C-alpha cells in the first residue's frame, strides 16, 4: 500500500529514526496498519542489551506514533504540519520484541483535528499482542 519511498514523502523522520518499513492498509479517518522488520544490524542493539538484544519499548511506541502521523496526514489533506509532539501516551507492554521479529502496528483514530490527534494503538508479533495503548500528539 505504501513502500518506504512513499512513507518518506509523508513522514519527516529519517534513518536512524524511521521506524516503519511499509504501510499495508490505510483507511483515512479510521485506521492504519504498518510494519517494521526488526534487524540485528540496528545500532541500538549494541547497548540494549549486548548479548541479549531487545527492541526498545520506547521505539515500539515511536513506530506506533509514526503510523499515527501517516494516518492523520492522509486523513486531513490540508494539514500543513511537518512536526509532531507527543503529549500523552498510556501503554501496556506484554512481550519483548527481538531481532528477526516483524512488528505489526495497528492504529485506530479516536479523534483527529488540525491541532493533533488521539489514537488507540496496538503492536503485535506473530499475531500476539506485544503492546497496547493510547497516545496523543500535537501537530505543528
Amino acid at each position, binding site marked *: 500500500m505504501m513502500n518506504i519511498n512513499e512513507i518518506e514523502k509523508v513522514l519527516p523522520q529519517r534513518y536512524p529514526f524511521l521506524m516503519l518499513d511499509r504501510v499495508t492498509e490505510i483507511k483515512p479517518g479510521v485506521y492504519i496498519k504498518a510494519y517494521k522488520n526488526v534487524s540485528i544490524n540496528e545500532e541500538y542493539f549494541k547497548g540494549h542489551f549486548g548479548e541479549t538484544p531487545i527492541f526498545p519499548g520506547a521505539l515500539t511506541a515511536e513506530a506506533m506514533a509514526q503510523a499515527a502521523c501517516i494516518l492523520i496526514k492522509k486523513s486531513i489533506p490540508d494539514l500543513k504540519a511537518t512536526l509532531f509532539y507527543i503529549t*500523552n501516551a498510556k501503554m501496556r507492554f506484554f512481550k519483548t520484541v527481538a531481532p528477526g521479529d516483524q512488528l505489526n502496528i495497528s492504529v485506530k483514530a*479516536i*479523534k483527529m*483535528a488540525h*491541532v493533533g490527534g*488521539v489514537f488507540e494503538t496496538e503492536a503485535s508479533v506473530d499475531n500476539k499482542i506485544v503492546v497496547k495503548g493510547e497516545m*496523543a*500528539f*500535537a501537530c505543528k
Partner: protein
Amino acid sequence: MPQLDDLTLEKELREIIAKITEIESERITLEARFIEDLGMDSMMALEILAAMEKKYKIRIPEDKLNKLANLNETIKLTKEYLKA
C-alpha cells in the same frame, strides 16, 4: 442513552477533565477558565473532546474545540450534541 440529569453530567465531565489534565477536581469549578485559570492547552482540550465523544457516543466537530472554555460551556456543548 437514558436522559442525563445536569448534576450527573457535571460530575462526569469534571471527572473526565480531572483525569486528562491531572488537575484536582475541586479546582474545576463551573466558571474556572480552562486555559487562563487551569493551565490547559489545546491538546488537552482535544483529548477531553475525544473522551466526551467516547462516553456519550456523540460526534463533536473540530471547530467546536474553542467552545471548551470552562466546565459550564463544556456541559452546554455536551447537552447540545446529546439532544441532536
